[in-house]
């Protein structure tokens, strides 16, 4: 660097246009030369200059092209040629620097805003071989002279930088704000890592509070590098207790032992969750507590072989850590008729009904299934009632391979005639189809359906009787 720092700053402050500075170019140019030398030595195929003759390949791609070809392409893109009309800059949402609490002077902010555009002249060179850069010692002298703007630009371009010279809080924050203004997450995180190393937590957290973009990057960085403790401290310092609570709660996943896990969940109950979350953690704890009791009892029962159901249907897995509905299903499967039921579950009638129905159907216990629908009115008449639509009931039963005679009963209860016929046909409940067509006085459909039933069957006879019945007033 030949210019003094002061000179340079003057220049930047007054500059409205993109600058090309030769000292930067020198650095880049020598690197370019070295790369090119290295590249040239790879193969004699590399032509000096001139138009690229683009060799087209078929879609499937012919086998390996030459390495030099691609390298040449890259090198060519670094040569100056007539510039294209530039695209305009559009205002991207930048954090409003003026809001920052850091006490940066207005002029330095101004500088930051304008200078961010004044990028280094020729720096698009893609270095394939970082090893080919200048010797380390020489390199370092140069690095220490870079301004905040240049440093951020180098960060953006993935080049080496030293951040150590940015020691005052203002300098550090300027660096951060510039990185944020450049919308480059990699650069933002790079600066944050430096800030984390060189600022105490209190100051860092305080400054991040007014810099939401940087803060999000920091949180993500800490999450990825698994610095849970610092992350919790940060969230608490920012008053984001609900997030902190969730983060702490999440740790249960790392605890395998069920009793320890239960105790951990219990300890989470005192955390400040947001909204309904607290209740759900409570439910989670209660559920696991319950599951531990059930699991211990059933494991014992299974071992002793006293209960028939465990022998007929051996348990496939432990019930620990299963969802509530699965637990309910399990209980309806193995413990249906026992007096004690896990009753305090905050579930709806529908949820219970669906689950119990599936469990009893799986066991092919049709008596239990039947009983679920029975409700007696005050005169003692029984009528089938269900919180689920009967269409859904049929679906559940059929998925548990219920026989036609069972299905039939529920298909018949589907109130919508069209739907009922559809289901009845699907499940071969001939009687229902026939009766429904009769009720609909649809002779044509009935005659049509006659073709689908077995010859000489009872169904066929029934259809024939109906079709010849003079008393029915068919609509067609």
């Amino acid at each position: 660097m030949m210019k003094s720092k002061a000179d340079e700053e003057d220049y930047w402050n007054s500059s409205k246009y993109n600058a090309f500075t030769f000292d930067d170019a020198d650095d880049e140019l020598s690197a370019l030369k070295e790369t090119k030398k290295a590249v040239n030595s790879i193969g004699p195929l590399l032509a000096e200059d001139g138009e690229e003759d683009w060799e087209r390949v078929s879609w499937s791609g012919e086998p390996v092209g030459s390495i030099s070809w691609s390298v040449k392409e890259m090198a060519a893109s670094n040569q100056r040629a007539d510039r294209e009309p530039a695209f305009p800059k559009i205002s991207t949402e930048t954090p409003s620097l003026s809001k920052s609490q850091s006490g940066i002077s207005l002029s330095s902010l101004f500088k930051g805003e304008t200078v961010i555009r004044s990028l280094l002249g020729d720096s698009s060179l893609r270095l394939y071989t970082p090893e080919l850069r200048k010797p380390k010692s020489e390199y370092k002298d140069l690095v220490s002279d870079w301004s905040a703007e240049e440093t951020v630009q180098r960060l953006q371009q993935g080049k080496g930088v030293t951040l150590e010279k940015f020691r005052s809080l203002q300098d550090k924050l300027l660096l951060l704000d510039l990185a944020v203004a450049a919308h480059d997450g990699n650069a933002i995180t790079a600066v944050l890592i430096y800030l984390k190393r060189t600022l105490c937590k209190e100051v860092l957290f305080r400054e991040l509070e007014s810099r939401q973009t940087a803060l999000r990057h920091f949180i993500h960085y800490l999450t990825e590098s698994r610095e849970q403790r610092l992350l919790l401290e940060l969230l608490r310092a920012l008053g984001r207790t609900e997030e902190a609570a969730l983060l702490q709660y999440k740790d249960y996943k790392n605890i395998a032992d069920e009793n320890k896990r239960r105790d951990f969940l219990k300890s989470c109950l005192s955390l400040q969750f947001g909204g309904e979350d607290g209740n759900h953690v409570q439910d989670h704890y209660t559920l696991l507590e319950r599951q531990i009791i059930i699991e211990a009892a059933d494991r014992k029962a299974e071992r002793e072989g006293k209960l028939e159901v465990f022998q007929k249907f051996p348990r496939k897995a432990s019930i620990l850590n299963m969802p509530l509905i699965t637990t309910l299903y399990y209980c309806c499967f193995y413990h249906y008729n026992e007096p004690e039921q896990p009753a305090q579950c905050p579930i709806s009638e529908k949820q219970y009904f669906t689950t119990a129905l599936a469990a009893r159907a799986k066991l092919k216990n049709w008596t239990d299934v039947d009983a679920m629908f029975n409700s007696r009115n005050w005169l003692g008449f029984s009528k089938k009632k269900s919180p689920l639509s009967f269409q859904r009931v049929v679906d559940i039963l059929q998925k548990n391979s219920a026989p036609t005679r069972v299905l039939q009963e529920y298909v018949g209860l589907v109130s919508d005639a069209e739907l009922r016929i559809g289901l009845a046909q699907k499940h071969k409940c001939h009687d229902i189809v026939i009766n429904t067509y009769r009720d609909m006085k649809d002779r044509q459909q009935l005659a049509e359906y006659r073709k689908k039933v077995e010859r000489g069957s009872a169904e066929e006879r029934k259809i024939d009787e109906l079709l010849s019945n003079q008393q029915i007033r068919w609509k067609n």
Partner: protein
Amino acid sequence: MAHSARRDSPELPDLSLLKRLVRDQLIYLLEQLPGKKDLFIDSDLMSPLDRIANVSTLKQHEVDKLYKVEHKPIVSISDQICFLIRPRIQTVKWICDVVNADKAAGKFRRYKIIFTPQKFYACEAVLEEQGVFGDVTTDEWAFYLLPLDEDIISLELPEFFRDNFLAGDQRWVRTAGSALHLLHSLFGPFSKVYGIGRCSKMTYESWREQVEQGEQKARHAEIGNVFLIDRDVDFVTPLCSQVVYEGLVDDIFRIKCGCVEFGPEVTSSDKSIKVMLNSQDKVFNEIRNEHFSNVFGFLSQKARNLQTAYDKRRGMDIQQMKTFVSEELKGLKQEHRLLSLHISASESIMKKKTKQDFQELLKTEHCLLEGFEIRECISFIEEHINRQVSMIESLRLLCLLSVTENALCLIRPVSCAGFRQSYGADHLLTFSNLRQLGLLVEQQPGETLTVMESKVGKLVNDRTAVKLTDAFSSLAKKSHFRALSKKLNLVPKSDEEYDLRVPRDMAYIFSGAYIPLSCKIIEQVLERDSWTGLEEVTRLINGHEFAVTGADPKSKSDAQRIILVMFLGGCTFSEISALRFLGKERGYKFIVVTTAITNSSRLLEALLDNNV
């Protein structure tokens, strides 16, 4: 297809160029570590790598053994090890462990990390912290763009979505900008760039800066216009079930890097086979954009034609037969093989879909899109959850309800509690993610958002207000789908018959029920050549829209009708099909660049908490 193309579509530029560029660069990098070496590859880089190089290419450049990065101690005995990885902190930590273990055992090796598409300072910081900086050399492989087909390019960065939209980490902005820059320098100069979304704007800026810094030869433009769009502009579309063949295959079998693995249920043998799905597959190419209901008819017609072609050989003399065998038979056999494959795949799709009551599911989706019979939809979703049917499907329906309806109080009865009861307590964290992204919003009891906001505004001073507004921002991300749908006519009138064989608009990709919002916006802007007249739409989307003009197109060349659409955060095959349709109608050709191909499952899986 029965489309009436308006005029001849322009020729697409040859994207395979991109493959050659990165392949050569990879070889160059491998040669930087002369001698025999073992190569460790990040598992999600294997398929992309497969598309541009094969094992023999690697062997030619002295790669001895290939391993997958598994975060376990390594067994390699080579004295040179090369790691080809994505820039992730945990992977670099594992490499540090490997190096430190070697050091402790007194083993000397040379190590090289090749980060792709670029390295991050956070990764280098790990090397430094773990004391192996210097022991390990690092390089970058600028593998930004993988052409999946003649009109699809993928960055293969599925994490872009979560990092950018959920974590708010802008690490990939520069990457997207560089990718665009590469396309600009190969196929540009672009003359117009349109965009919508925060990330699009930042990507544009990053690209513009790179263009300014770099120099470029003036060349003949092959791509004239560019459209950048953020995924969060439209969450509705990727949440819908796909019913166009390619999308359906992706939903069911998961297409990975343009390749699908058909299991035994399709191949009707005990083996699975991998098939490349692109325009090279003549059968696939004709059905990929078709609504599934047309596919069977098409395939059987194709089968009849094939039969006729085979039958030709009857009554041939020796000479004719010879010609037939040498010229036609191979092609016919190939076609035969592909045809039977796609027929079996279609069968398998049918079986799977009838099993899960697909009709009912679609009906619910269509009602949600239309805003019709919402109560019935809710009870369907509720039952779906209670029965513990597919977790992702339930989540998808819940989110779709939330983003389409915005009548959030309705969600309470279905409630996220029921979901957790069915699928496990740990979804507490999933829901926290969904809330943050605005995909699933539960109504706060009692007050509406606006009331709350105005109260807050009055009560507290500015600084706290900023914090609170931030806390509310997720709530503020309420969807305006209903209003947008009305404004843009996204839902065609349901009383008209929609002939799926002769599509009249992009709605055909969703059985005529819905025109994808993302594609509709693109259509509207291209039609107007600006955002003028769409002010209300952009306001509802929460905008960040822009349209900028760069180089003046020297001539009204074909390039002006080639439009590069870049989806930041992923796009679905259905959207690609819709754009292909639009292109045919208007005489454009679209090239889709996406950070990754997505669908509802991928989108939601990225937000499950076990993801990190």
